[in-house]
């Protein structure tokens, strides 16, 4: 079968790319290995043993970053709406209350109003506020969309501006764990993307979670009659003798197109091509998450934060856990604490720890289950420590590990933020084959959709592939 473009993967970037191409009458084929869309931001269900029926869970999405208010212009989220012809109201965004970075003896709150973070830093690090303002000026004027930028260390830049090491650690903590493929540091261009999307813009959550976004995108795909196939894994990317990709094999069938956009990760993509001179490296950062359903919501007077970035020492270690998982730091997400969420009924808490893929991989079935239970126990202990007054009970818990991530997203080694070798302009060693999504270096749900959009525009619509 012949198409104008093939998109590999129906995650956020693949769906967005598919929509853009189909919008302008390109005959597009989207191939997805899983039975449902979403990729790293998907959902699953579990039978509900006490009440019958099923419970639905989101994976990925703690928050939609890049929050804007209705009508705000010139921001990543508003660009996304225009490019996909979606309206702000479709997303049913509920803003966060606020989130906080919690280190021993000091916390910094931030919200969708940047002034809150500024006043927190003035109060808690009075000697540093002018330095921090200078840093924000640099961040504001930095063009992170320039595709020619090469790697530079964020820590090195931060040290030029800020003297207090604790403040550096605290600023970095949410940015690293919400987006860095690199251990203990991140590319400064990615730091800027994350700084803007978390601290300048902030968090929201669509009512209904990730499925609200996915059903919007799927409706567009279907309205535009784009060809999307699930349970259809690409086993090979076809490349001719001149090094030009021209098609794929999926489920034994051959499909041809002059442009192929792959959202499955850079190392994962080149595993499907002929051998390349230097294989992109797989990142080491992987995570696990415990999801608890509580018999009641945590009252706001016991915890009013939406997300807590917790660390139990003054130094933030962002690296694979030494021993399976590391409970000395965590991200605790309280999805009930987005504004205008129903305050009645069951509560939900999600707790993320850093993990160690190579250790999890070695476990046999029974030690895997018992290690998962230890993760659950440590998560509950942490919740008890942070919210000692809460007396609710856990009705249900579910835990995913690096193995779960690898099994359902096919990201090698269970990575979430992809390879440590990004390809900022999407190019690969093969002509007509481009990387979209996380490994292009744009982060979060909004970032990955913009990545899919911009690569579809550049290589699928403007015809740059012919140059």
């Amino acid at each position, binding site marked *: 079968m012949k198409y104008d473009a093939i998109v590999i993967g129906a995650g956020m970037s693949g769906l967005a790319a598919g929509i853009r191409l189909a919008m302008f009458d390109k005959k597009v084929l989207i191939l997805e290995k899983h039975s449902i869309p979403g990729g790293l931001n998907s959902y699953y269900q579990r039978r509900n043993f006490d009440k019958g029926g099923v419970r639905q869970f989101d994976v990925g999405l703690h928050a939609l970053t890049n929050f804007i208010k209705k009508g705000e212009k*010139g921001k990543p989220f508003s660009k996304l709406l225009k490019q996909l012809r979606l309206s702000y109201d479709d997303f049913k965004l509920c803003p966060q209350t606020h989130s906080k970075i919690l280190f021993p003896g000091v916390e910094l709150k931030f919200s969708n109003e940047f002034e809150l973070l500024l006043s927190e830093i003035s109060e808690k690090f009075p000697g540093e506020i002018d330095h921090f303002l200078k840093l924000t000026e640099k961040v504001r004027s930095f063009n992170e969309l320039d595709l020619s930028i090469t790697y530079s260390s964020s820590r090195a830049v931060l040290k030029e501006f800020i003297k207090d090491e604790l403040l550096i650690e605290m600023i970095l903590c949410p940015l690293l764990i919400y987006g860095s493929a690199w251990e203990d540091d991140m590319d400064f261009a990615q730091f800027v993307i994350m700084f803007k999307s978390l601290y300048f813009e902030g968090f929201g959550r669509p009512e209904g979670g990730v499925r609200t976004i996915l059903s919007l995108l799927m409706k567009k795909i279907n309205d535009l009659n784009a060809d999307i196939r699930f349970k259809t894994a690409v086993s090979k990317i076809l490349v001719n003798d001149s090094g030009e990709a021209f098609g794929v094999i999926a489920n034994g069938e051959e499909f041809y197109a002059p442009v192929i956009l792959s959202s499955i990760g850079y190392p994962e993509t080149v595993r499907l091509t002929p051998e390349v001179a230097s294989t992109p490296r797989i990142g080491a950062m992987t995570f696990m998450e415990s999801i608890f359903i509580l018999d009641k919501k945590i009252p706001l007077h016991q915890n009013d934060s939406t997300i807590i970035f917790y660390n139990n020492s003054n130094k933030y270690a962002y690296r694979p856990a030494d021993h399976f998982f590391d409970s000395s730091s965590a991200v605790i997400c309280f999805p009930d604490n987005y504004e205008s969420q129903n305050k009645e009924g069951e509560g939900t808490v999600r707790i993320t720890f850093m993990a160690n893929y190579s250790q999890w991989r070695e476990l046999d079935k029974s030690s895997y289950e018992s290690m998962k239970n230890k993760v659950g126990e440590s998560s509950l202990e942490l919740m008890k420590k942070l919210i000692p007054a809460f007396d609710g009970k856990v009705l249900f818990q579910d835990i995913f590990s690096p193995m779960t991530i690898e099994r359902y997203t096919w990201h090698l080694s269970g990575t979430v933020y992809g390879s440590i070798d990004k390809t900022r302009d999407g190019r690969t060693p093969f002509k007509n084959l481009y990387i979209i999504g996380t490994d292009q270096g744009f982060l979060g749900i909004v970032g990955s959709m913009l990545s899919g*959009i911009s690569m579809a*525009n550049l290589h699928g619509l*403007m015809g740059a592939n012919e140059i």
Partner: protein
Amino acid sequence: MADVRQIVIDIISDIAPDEDVSNLDDAKSLREQLDLDSMDFLDIVMELRKRHKVEVPQEDYPKLATLASCVSYLSPKFATV
């Protein structure tokens, strides 16, 4: 004869539904008056092709800077459609 000015305005209001296009100054750059970026200009070009079969090569994108320049650049193209 097609009303090229109106055609461009219709496209812009579909691409950027939140923009007020009722009081545009034909001589001023569209970017100055509206929240349009390079992605939006690509969409204007793509919509011209899709709706009216009018092609704008990439090197001519700057000729879409103002409503007046759109009219003078696009009118001959519409005449031959």
